[in-house]
């Protein structure tokens, strides 16, 4: 396979609190190849958004990247100077945040916000910048006359499309999407996802897609990683993870969603509560909620191992047959 676009190795991110350090991202390694869509899923607080922020080196205190490397096209993102970071953000990797409502400045027009990105990164005339802004709005299905609108004049779905247009305008190689459609209803979500798919086909960018909606994940991603308490517990090709989950947490997550077409039966989900990162146990972090928990799980932390049946599949569980 070719060189990865983004390569994260052994990344740890801590939140420093009065009562101790909470390790929100714990020894995570992940590669994203050009043009690939990689998903990250897990419940709130599992570290998926923290990981996304780390990629753009956006963390500030109390969050601290304590170890690990982030390589983007062979360059170390964490050692960038301020100016290098400024250039790297948006022109190489852009982000779409969870709440489009808050990502746009309410007191300036969306046109200005689009143009601002172009002018900050490239030397071109205002006229050219406006033209590019208009083109990009049309790409996401919004009429160019909307350049003069303020965010409050647009619906939630349109605002999210504007945010996607802003993320696309410099043609970055990677777009990080942090729950881009969570606040929207299903019909709008479907439209935006369809559109994203076509834009991706046209421009060939890679996507890191963060969501807790596994069904949506299964629809759009090539590979998916499942995170629990800061660690990736399962990683593999999406269709295979969805059809034959190996880690008990993945199995539980997949069992937690009622389906609309399948048989109607009582589902049990996952018992217990998410882990408090300030009181991590020895051994596997999932032990308190796991049915298969044994002595070894309580003593040793399982490492990500390749699955014997599928060498693109990694699972961190003592109870799963590895190589």
């Amino acid at each position, binding site marked *: 396979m070719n060189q990865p676009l983004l390569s994260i190795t052994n990344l740890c991110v801590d939140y420093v609190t009065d009562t101790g350090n909470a390790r929100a991202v714990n020894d995570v390694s992940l590669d994203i190849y050009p043009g690939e869509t990689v998903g990250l899923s897990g*419940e*709130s*607080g599992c570290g998926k958004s923290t990981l996304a922020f780390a990629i753009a080196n956006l963390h500030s205190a109390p969050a601290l990247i304590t170890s690990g490397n982030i390589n983007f096209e062979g360059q170390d993102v964490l050692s960038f100077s301020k100016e290098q970071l400024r250039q790297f953000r948006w022109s190489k990797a852009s982000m779409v945040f969870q709440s489009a409502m808050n990502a746009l400045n309410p007191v300036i027009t969306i046109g200005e916000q689009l143009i601002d990105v172009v002018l900050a990164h490239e030397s071109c005339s205002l006229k050219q910048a406006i033209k590019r802004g208009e083109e990009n709005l049309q790409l996401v*299905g*919004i009429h160019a006359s909307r350049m003069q609108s303020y965010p409050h004049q647009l*619906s*939630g*779905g349109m605002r999210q499309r504007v945010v996607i247009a802003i993320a696309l305008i410099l043609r970055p190689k990677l777009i990080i999407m942090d729950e881009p459609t969570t606040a929207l*209803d*299903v*019909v*709008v*979500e*479907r*439209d935006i*996802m*369809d*559109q994203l*798919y*076509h834009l991706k086909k046209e421009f060939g960018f890679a996507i890191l897609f963060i969501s*807790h*909606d*596994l*069904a*949506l994940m*299964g*629809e759009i991603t090539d590979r998916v990683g499942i995170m629990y308490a800061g660690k990736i517990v399962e990683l593999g090709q*999406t*269709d295979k993870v*969805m*059809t034959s989950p190996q880690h008990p947490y993945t199995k*539980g*997550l997949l069992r*937690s*969603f*009622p*389906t*609309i*077409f399948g048989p*109607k039966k*009582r*589902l*049990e*989900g*996952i*018992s217990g*509560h*998410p882990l408090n990162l300030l009181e991590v146990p020895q051994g596997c972090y999932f032990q308190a909620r796991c049915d298969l928990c044994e002595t070894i799980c309580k003593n040793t932390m399982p490492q990500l191992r390749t699955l014997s049946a599928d060498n693109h599949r990694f699972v961190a569980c003592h109870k799963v047959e590895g190589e």
Partner: protein
Amino acid sequence: MNQVNSFEVDNLVIDFALDNAIFNRKYMRAVNGVSFHIKAGEALAIVGESGSGKSTCARAMARMYEPNAGAICLDKKDINDKHEHLSQEELAKQVQMIFQDPFGALNPVHTIRHHLYRPISIHMPHLKGEAIEDYMLEVLERVGLSPAQQTASKYPHELSGGQRQRVAIARAVSTGAKFILADEPISMLDVSIRLGILNLMTDMKSDGIGFLYITHDIATARYFAERTGVMYVGHLVEWGDSDSVTQHPQHPYTQLLISAVPEVGRKRSAEPRDYSKNQIPLWTPDSKGCPFALRCPKVEAKCHSEMPGISQISDDHFVRCFAYKSE
């Protein structure tokens, strides 16, 4: 009126003023001619997108809004009837709400005990002293918050989102309410916690509590509720048995909703849809026709001038659409 068995909404109309003009004040019609009923021990799900009027219906049923027309009847008695004059206390004893945000629904400076003590002492006047405490612990156990003694002494910030929503449910059932209006009770909770709350509410149905379950997630509607209604811009467009509505949707809007639900392994459509057709009308008291006409693939000329009548598809499945022709 201790044993109420039905909660009916008949032809409910609710308008909201759009401005403060003294003359020619403009209104929007948030709910237009909606009728449904909930039976004790049964759940009715109302599904629809943001702004379709589903929460407004629930709030009117808790008498937070006064309807402009139509009736809301608890066991055939109109809760807004001036002559009957049902007091807020009597209504609250039968009908309780659970809100979307379990963080905002509890007072952060009071313990869980305080949150439960007040409704119990008001609505269960026969309980005194120790008996209140015993009953409170029993309710906490019932919603799965054990050890109850410890939970009762905690403050809301010491509990997780799912536990807080359980407290909200405990508070609602502690009055002995027969009907619970649950307004998106799980949408703000963690994915692994949601099912636990849905299962808890399912267990409460077998204790004879009726639920109005408001959601935009049609899959959980089918999972939890026996009956489902689909709302679009203030109109109930299709309703009936959940399985029938979700497996054999007849209204073009229901079909659109169901086709939009993500599913593992689904393939993308070849061409993106025409987004200019996504207009959602602002419904006013003078608006005519079917609200979905602007987006409907099966639109006819008459759709713009009159609202379709109710067609019965099967025993418990109704639709309001001209395109539905019974065989």
